[in-house]
């Protein structure tokens, strides 16, 4: 018997539930706000949170692997501020971009070293690097704003590149497809689940879980640094508080997507649905002029619901979230 034997079964899975919720949100938005379905608004809706949702993709891997990376927002800030600082000090903007990606790899490797080689809890390690990266970002640019970046750099974040689509949105699409195949169709993806489900079993089965975790944290650092550059390009300026607190929004999206905080369960389909839900919900509420506190409250309720629902109906909701195969 296959998992998707009937539509009803599908709907009872977490992804099915998210999909239904998304349809309701889209319908309500379209009915209540005339501007919702315009192309410009649909692009804006993604653009306003594009850096967060890009990082949410790699965060999905980290959490399925039963780890957490709290330092992503700080790394985004550090990358953006390092770019601003280098640019201000006369470094060519293209070179500065490459150096920032290097900083992302180095920062990710630092996290990975402590977590994989020293076997320290990722919660503690990335909390420490969150503070460290943010501190460094603030030292580099303090509270002054750095602006007037080259036109081509600002255009990357602000101008349409392909039809109405800006660069960041295309990057998100490409990255999603690549990571989807990686997680759902390859041995690397299966190992991500196995290690997250039970690390001891994975080690006994001969999986090098330390190497695997190291790679994931390096990837997280790299993608976060990339997202930080995208942010700098989109807003055309940087300041020490760039991307402050973004990690919580990112983790919220991933958990809402049905990825278990204990590891081993979840999918990029769930994360994508969760991204669409959160962005459309926020956009709809903004167009209805619903104020910030209520928006945050609604997202919070949604997250509580997403944590509670699987506990209330455990067997059904977890079924689809499990990987197809669990052998490496």
């Amino acid at each position, binding site marked *: 018997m296959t998992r998707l034997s009937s539509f009803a079964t599908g709907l009872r899975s977490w992804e099915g539930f998210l999909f239904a919720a998304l349809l309701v949100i889209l319908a309500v938005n379209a009915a209540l706000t005339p501007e919702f379905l315009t192309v410009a608004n649909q692009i804006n809706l993604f653009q306003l949170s594009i850096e967060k949702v890009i990082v949410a993709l790699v965060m999905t891997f980290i959490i399925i692997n039963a780890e957490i990376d709290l330092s992503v927002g700080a790394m985004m800030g550090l990358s953006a501020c390092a770019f601003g600082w280098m640019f201000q000090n006369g470094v060519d903007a293209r070179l500065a971009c490459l150096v920032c990606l290097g900083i992302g790899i180095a920062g990710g490797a630092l996290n990975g070293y402590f977590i994989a080689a020293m076997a320290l809890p990722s919660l503690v390690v990335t909390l420490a690097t969150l503070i460290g990266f943010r501190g460094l970002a603030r030292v580099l640019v303090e509270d002054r704003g750095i602006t007037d970046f080259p036109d081509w750099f600002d255009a990357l974040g602000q101008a349409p590149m392909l039809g109405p689509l800006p660069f960041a949105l295309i990057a998100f699409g490409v990255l999603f497809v690549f990571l989807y195949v990686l997680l759902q169709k390859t041995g690397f993806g299966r190992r991500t689940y196995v290690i997250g489900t039970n690390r001891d079993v994975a080690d006994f089965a001969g999986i090098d879980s330390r190497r695997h975790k190291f790679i994931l944290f390096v990837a997280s650092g790299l993608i976060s640094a990339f997202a930080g550059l995208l942010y700098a390009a989109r807003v055309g300026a940087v300041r020490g508080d760039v991307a402050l607190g973004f990690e919580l929004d990112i983790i919220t999206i991933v958990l809402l997507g049905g990825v278990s905080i204990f590891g081993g369960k979840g999918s990029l389909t769930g994360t994508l649905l969760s991204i669409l839900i959160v962005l459309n919900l926020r956009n709809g509420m903004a167009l209805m002029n619903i104020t*910030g506190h209520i928006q945050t409250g609604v997202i919070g309720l949604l997250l509580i619901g997403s944590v509670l629902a699987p506990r209330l109906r455990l067997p059904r909701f977890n079924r689809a979230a499990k990987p197809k195969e669990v052998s490496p």
Partner: protein
Amino acid sequence: MKMTKLMGTAAALAMLGSGLAQAQTALEGGQEVDMVLLPKFLGILVFDQANEGAQEAHAELGNPGELLFVGPTPENSVAGQIEIMTTSATQGQGAVMLSNNAGDQIAPSAKAAQDAGTKVVTWDSPIPSGEGEDVFVAQVDFGSIGTVMADMAHSILGGSGQMAVLSATPDAANQNAWIASMQDALKGDKYSGIELVDIVYGDDQAEVSYNRALALVDKYPDLGVIMSPTTVGIQASAKAMQDEGLCDQVKVSGLGLPAEMVSYTMNGCAPEFALWDFRDLGYLTYYTAYGMATGQLTGELGESFTAGRMGDYTIEEDPGRPGSKRILMGPFTVYNKDNVEAAAQ
């Protein structure tokens, strides 16, 4: 609808003609335009007061459109302001009135809003580069703040004595500029009897500021006044002096909110302090934005208009940001026993 718009434009053009002759535009009410008042974030008294002022002007001008007061949460201020700016452009709002907390990061979305036909009028805090901003309604001339604080110290100390400053954080740009401007002012002969003994920082947190204020009293037994150019610091200092029964020796002054300071002013702990009136700021900002969104004001340098009960204002170059425009509300209101209770309502 279209007809009224056309008539509005015609009226505006006619008025522009007469405006050139008299150099003073009287804004015609009753034109429909939706506008957004966007504070740094929600839940702060002064922004609520600015909203009251804007609502007052909204009613006075009889705008049948909507005046929205929407803002982000404090922890999401930058991203939230950018989001609301973008959404307002999508909605086709006539104007966004922005107290900017996002630095130059708001500039691309503000420019996009302008391209979509939305006027961007900043108040309280401008866009540093001036990009994407039509005009900034400045509450006071920040250069004058030093003299105002020096004068209050002079009056409280009776001409001579020791003063200490309790500021926000060491890297708070506004406060540092104001303290520097006060140190400049203190060089004048009038203030030769005033000695500035120390500058300390309470991190804009009530408890830290409270303890720093008490430490100042311990360190300088002859201290006569604590000058705090932050609303958090001044209130915490006044409370510290009151709690320890020190108000007879050490007075508190600086920049404070009447509603928070009224009891300390009435009991003599903080006999004088200064601030601008946020209701007036919201009122003037609304008149400016309404004028621009309805096309009655073009936003050119030298343009003058009448803002209801507040009188006449002129668009001028912002001395702090060359190439940008401002409207100066000024001057400071100095609060004391005579006027603080009315302002605290």
